[in-house]
């Protein structure tokens, strides 16, 4: 008589340190409220928002989207590399993701510079209030994400992570993907939808 084996599979744990997920959920809540307020205010000022949306550089916005997606892909590769104990490969993928992130910051800075040097500020009108506050808030998150990835890179180079212990890499990766996720919504909402 054969014994019947019943396999029960426990759900996976969230990747990385659990604390970062509390931070991620809180950040998403703030951005979510910001997005909804933008949508509601836009609904009350459609002509104004459409008019000034045309002054934005959609090419830079699209390239920046591609840069963030690429950076996220590189971070995924870094996580996969460390899980196979490939520290050098992990570090190289992190360098690549930081490069893509730096590309985003440079392009976004040129966009901000163009607007600010033209005398545009948050006081210019309601559209620019939201455009500058939303994109600048996200810009700060990209900087923080890059600082976290840089710290992960330094620890990787020092051999602090391994196939068995790589929570820090997963933690940094999770935060970076959140930054990417927010931009995926921000770009069509602010630059495209009319």
């Amino acid at each position: 008589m054969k014994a019947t084996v019943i396999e029960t599979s426990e759900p996976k744990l969230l990747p990385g340190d659990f604390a970062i997920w509390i931070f991620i959920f809180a950040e998403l809540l703030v951005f979510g409220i910001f997005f909804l307020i933008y949508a509601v205010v836009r609904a009350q000022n459609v002509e104004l928002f459409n008019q000034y949306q045309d002054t934005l550089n959609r090419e830079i916005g699209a390239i920046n989207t591609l840069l963030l997606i690429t950076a996220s892909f590189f971070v995924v590769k870094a996580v996969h590399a460390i899980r196979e104990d490939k520290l050098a490969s992990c570090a190289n993928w992190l360098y690549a993701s930081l490069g893509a992130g730096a590309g985003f910051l440079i392009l976004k800075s040129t966009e901000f510079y163009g607007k600010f040097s033209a005398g545009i500020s948050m006081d210019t009108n309601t559209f620019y209030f939201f455009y500058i506050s939303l994109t600048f808030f996200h810009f700060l998150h990209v900087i923080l994400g890059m600082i976290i990835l840089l710290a992960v890179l330094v620890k990787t180079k020092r051999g602090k992570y391994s196939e068995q212990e790589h929570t820090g890499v997963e933690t940094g990766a999770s935060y970076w993907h959140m930054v990417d996720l927010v931009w995926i919504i921000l770009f069509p909402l602010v630059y495209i939808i009319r």
Partner: protein
Amino acid sequence: MMVLTVSTYMMGALQLGGTGVVMFLLLTMIIKSTLIIRDFMELRGVSTLWKVIMYGWLGIVTLGIAVAYLASS
């Protein structure tokens, strides 16, 4: 995701608007976000609670944008 991003950009470059276009944009936004949540953030296989929080957030934000747009058009 790259293709969807380029299609999103093209909609903007051609200055296309209207309910159909916006619904398409929101659909591509949901697809890209789901890919990030599921595959990049690795939420496939985690507890239902975390999935409800993440996909619920995405759903509420998308629905809110859609309702606000429809209310203004």
